[in-house]
Each structure stands twice: as structure tokens, then as C-alpha cells.
């Protein structure tokens, strides 16, 4: 940990799946447990770190999140919370799925949590047909089966349409 504080201005380069390179300050990169582990084990920060599963658009979003959280002091929790809720507000589902996968791969717990919460909220608040359309889920029930499942779980729909 001591070395990361000394070399606060050190930068490293991340490369997205579509070949774009991002120059990132080390303390920002440390928000990612994956990168932290790579830097802790002898990985030289001079190297370019390839992230083959993450495209440039998603990586830019991820790094924006990391920068905000790395720069804000812990006393500004309220500001971070409002940043978090704004961050995902109008994001389309495709981008959100890319983001949750990137956060999972790079092990950025805070980002993973808010993205998962956003997906959960989408699932539970919307009618089934809408959820199917949003997530491209194929309805593999026959109409009779679907009615039977709904009848079986009728007890859970108290107070729901």
C-alpha cells in the first residue's frame, strides 16, 4: 500500500477489446481489485494491460466511475451516492449489461452492486412481457403452462396486478 501512495502520479495503460488505449492514474486503477492484484504481483505498470472482454465505450464508463470514487474523499458519501444514482439513470439495458460484466471482471464491488441493483429493480417493477422484451428472454412457456405457473404462485400476487 505504501508504494501506491508514493507513486501517486504514476500512470498505466489499459487496452480495450477494440484496441483503444486508456491512460489511467494509478490511484484510479486501484478501485479495481483485479488491477490492484496485478500491480501487487510483479506486473510492471509500464506494460499495456489488455482487457479483452471490455469494449472502449464500457471501459470509458467504468473509468469515469473509478475516477469519481478515487478522487472523492470518504467524507463526501452523500455526493458519491447522488453520483451513483445519476450514473446509471438513463442507461440502456445493453450498456448496463456490458457494465455489470466489466465490473464483475475487473472486480469493482461498488459498481457491480449498483448495476445489479438497477437490473433487479427493472425485473421486479415491470410486467413480465416488458421484462422479456428488455432482456430478450424467450417465453418458453405454453400459454396454458404460463397460466398454471401464475395460478400456483397466486399467493405471491396479493396487492399486485
Amino acid at each position, binding site marked *: 500500500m505504501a508504494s501506491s501512495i508514493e507513486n501517486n502520479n504514476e500512470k498505466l495503460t489499459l487496452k480495450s477489446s477494440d484496441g483503444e488505449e486508456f491512460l489511467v492514474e494509478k490511484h484510479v486503477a486501484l478501485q479495481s481489485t483485479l488491477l490492484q492484484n496485478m500491480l501487487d504481483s510483479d506486473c510492471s505498470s509500464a506494460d499495456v494491460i489488455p482487457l479483452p472482454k471490455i469494449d472502449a465505450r464500457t471501459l470509458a464508463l467504468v473509468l469515469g466511475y473509478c475516477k469519481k470514487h478515487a478522487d472523492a474523499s470518504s467524507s463526501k458519501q452523500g455526493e458519491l451516492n447522488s453520483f451513483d444514482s445519476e450514473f446509471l439513470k438513463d442507461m440502456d439495458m445493453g450498456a448496463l449489461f456490458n457494465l455489470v460484466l466489466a465490473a464483475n471482471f475487473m472486480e469493482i464491488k461498488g459498481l457491480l452492486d449498483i448495476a445489479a441493483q438497477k437490473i433487479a429493480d427493472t425485473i421486479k417493477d415491470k410486467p413480465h412481457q416488458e421484462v422479456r422484451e428488455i*432482456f430478450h428472454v424467450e417465453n418458453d412457456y405454453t400459454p396454458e403452462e404460463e397460466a398454471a405457473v401464475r395460478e400456483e404462485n397466486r399467493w405471491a400476487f396479493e396487492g399486485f396486478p
Partner: protein
Amino acid sequence: MEVPSEDRFSDLPNPVIHLIFSYLETNDIPRISGISRKFRDACTSSPYLDLEADFLALKRCGSNCQGFQDFVHRVLGRRNGVGIHRLRLSWFCAQPYCKRAGALIDDWVKYAADCNVQELDIGVFPGDGELFVIPPCLSNCQSLRELTLNMKGSGLLLQPGFFASLVDLTLTNVELCATFSGGGIGHWISTSCKSLKFLCLYKVTCYRSKDMSISSSSLQHLNLCACEFPEASKLSITSASLQHFSMRRCLFKEQGKVVVRAERLENLIVDVVFSSDFPNYRRFQFSIFAPSLVSFSWRGPPASYSDNLEHFWRLDEASISLETLHFHHTWQDKEFARNFLAGLLHSVRYTRTLKLNTEVFAYYHHPGVFVDLKHLAVVVRRFEEDQDQTISPFLRGLRNLSTLTIKLDADNDVVADPNVIALLWMRRQRYVAKNRKPRKIAFCFHENEEDFGPGEDNEGMLKWILECEKALGKVKFYY
């Protein structure tokens, strides 16, 4: 229809799907099972389950109750090797047919224990007059870290057990009658839960608590909220690890005694109520040994404060709110209240911040003897109350006071009357601490603060007051 390979949800790694499920709420899992088969399979193997059905208000529980039971059986019975992290299972049914509730809950909890459940929250109604026993399979469950029981006011029988990993225990709406061995909940906690750090009793009625003593070397937080002690009770807590102890709105119907011995205790809240038909305030005693105490709050009627009380050397903030609603105003009662306050104020004399309600000044007329009191707050029910004149003797004893705040009881509506502000302005001479006039007075409204220095002329001030239409929350004097 899209081709299945584009089903992005099912393509997510399992840990991510499970994380998403952890954010779902009560009964979401059975509701969203209707989306697709794949969805249903993912749902029912979720390590986070939150299922609830309450049929207590119904004459007949009908097929919905059976549907609930079948669903629980299905999700707990077919785990496909996926463990259970958190299970919340609330099933309230008082139908004769469902009388076997206890047995069914036992079966379900057994499934969960076999799946290494870590957090378990059970809601059950064993029926009027029936007792519920914590399923024995939990007693040796190594994974269980959090346990919550909600029983809608019915009785719990505590059996001796060994909850080795249990860190957090919450009992809600429970009637505690006795333990199997007759030792009481204190004994049960002390012997069965050796790793317990958090204990919360909410709306628990404690019978047979004549000698409820908890001794623990792991407990850190102890919260008793809205608990009831119908019989003469002695509550004794001995713990070298305890840091926070709160008793909020706890009702003692008979004699009560609270003894706390906790070397590391930092926060203590005592908030007690006595039943109005038995105003036994003289019979309530408390004694505290807590040399590390930083924050102390007392709310309730006068009580017997033990004489050999330790002083709180490290105290930073103290709050005393005296309640004298059912108080008989005989001279003995007044004497009792005076002695109680003298003892209590003496023990908090190292505090830097102090909050008192005006009731205190009805019984305590002496200068406040405090070593380093910087901030005093006085809570009044109404600004019109004329009791504040009795504050001045108290203020005379405070040499180091830097602010005095007069504020309204939070339960009351905020004052908007310009007359009140005018009255406070006229009375400002009363708030003189040790012949030091306030250097600044601030009227604090909900949205902002308006300051006035001593040079402010009366005319300009009164003009401002008459134009004032804002709601006053508190007045602050700076010395």
C-alpha cells in the same frame, strides 16, 4: 421473438445473477418465475430467498396457503447444489389444518441448515397459547451467523443449544416465558451464544425475568426496544466487550432494577416507562459502572440512582429528559426527584455537551456544577412556558459555556408566532451566564439562521419581528 442466444440475462455468470437476486424484495422470486422456464430455474435456485404469506386476518387460508407451502418445499427441496445465503421465511397461519406449522417450519429450516444458510429470518405464529421452539437443527449449524425471529406476540421456548457462529440475534414480537432449563433468556444468551455480537429485542415481553443476567465476552451491541417487563425484574449486564447499550421505551409494570458493568461501554441510552396504574418510580433502581462512557442519555421518571456510582471521566455528551406525568407532587416526591437529579447531574459533570428538558429545572434550582461544559441545550414544550427563568441559577455555575440553545420539543409543532420571538428578545437578560452577556443571539428557522449582536437597537429589532413570518425552531445564545 429474439433468438435465445441473445438472452443476455441467462448469459450472465452465476455469481452476478445471484447478486442481482439479492436485491429482490419479498415474494419477487415467485412473481418473476412466470417470465420463462430458464428464469424460473434461475429464480428457484437463488441463494437469496425472501418469502412471506400472512393469513392471520382470514377466516380460511384456502388454496393460497397450500400454494405457499408447495412453493417453499420446491425451492428448498431442489437446490441443485446451490447453497442458501439468506433466507427470509414468514408464514403466519392460524388455521386448525395448518397447526402443524411448527413441524413444517422445522423441516424447512432443516433444508436451509443443510444448505449452509448464513442469515435466517423466520416469521411464525404457533397459535395462541402454543410455544415455538427454535428448530434444534440450528443449534449445531456452523454456517448460521444471523438469526431473526418474528412471532406476532406468541410464545418462544428457549432450549439449551450451542450456536457457535451466531453473531447477530434479533427477537421481534415475542413473548419469552421460560427456558427449558428455567434459566431465563440471560442465561440462555450467556451459555448458548458465545460469539454473539449484536442482540436486539424488539417488542419482547419478558416474563420470569426476576434475575435476567447476561454475561458475555463477545457482545458489542445490545438494544432493547419497546420491551415489556410485566413482573418485578432485575436486568443485569456484565460484559467487557459491550460498546453500545440502549433501552428505548421499555415498560416496567412492577419493580425494576438495571445493573450495567461494562468497562468498554461508550454509548448508553436508558429510556424507561412505568405503567400509569402503578407509578412505582421509587422502585426503579439503576447502577452503572462504565468508565469509558462517551455518550449518555436518560429519559424517564425519577428513579433510584445507586450511590456508589462511578463517574464518567470521558463523557462528551449527555442528555437528561425527565418525565413527571404520573408524578404525585407531595414534598417527599419532590425531595426524591431532587436527590435523583442531583446524583445524575453530578455523575455527568465531565461532559462537554448537555441537553436537558425544562422539567429538570422544576426540581433542580442550584447552579450547575460542571467541569468543562461548553454547550447547553434546553428543550421546551412551548416557547411561552415561563419556566426558563429558573434556568438562570443553573447558568451561573457554568464558567466555560460557549453556547446555550433553547429549542422546541421535536414532537411539537414549530412556532410561527412573532409574539414569541418578541418575548424571547425581551427576556434575553435572563440568559446571562456568570455575568457574561450573550455576545450574539441567533434565531434559527427551519431554512436559515438570523443573527443579532448586542448593539442591535430595540426599535429595529421589533420591526424585524413584526415582519417575521417564518417558523422558529430554536434560539441560540453565543457567549
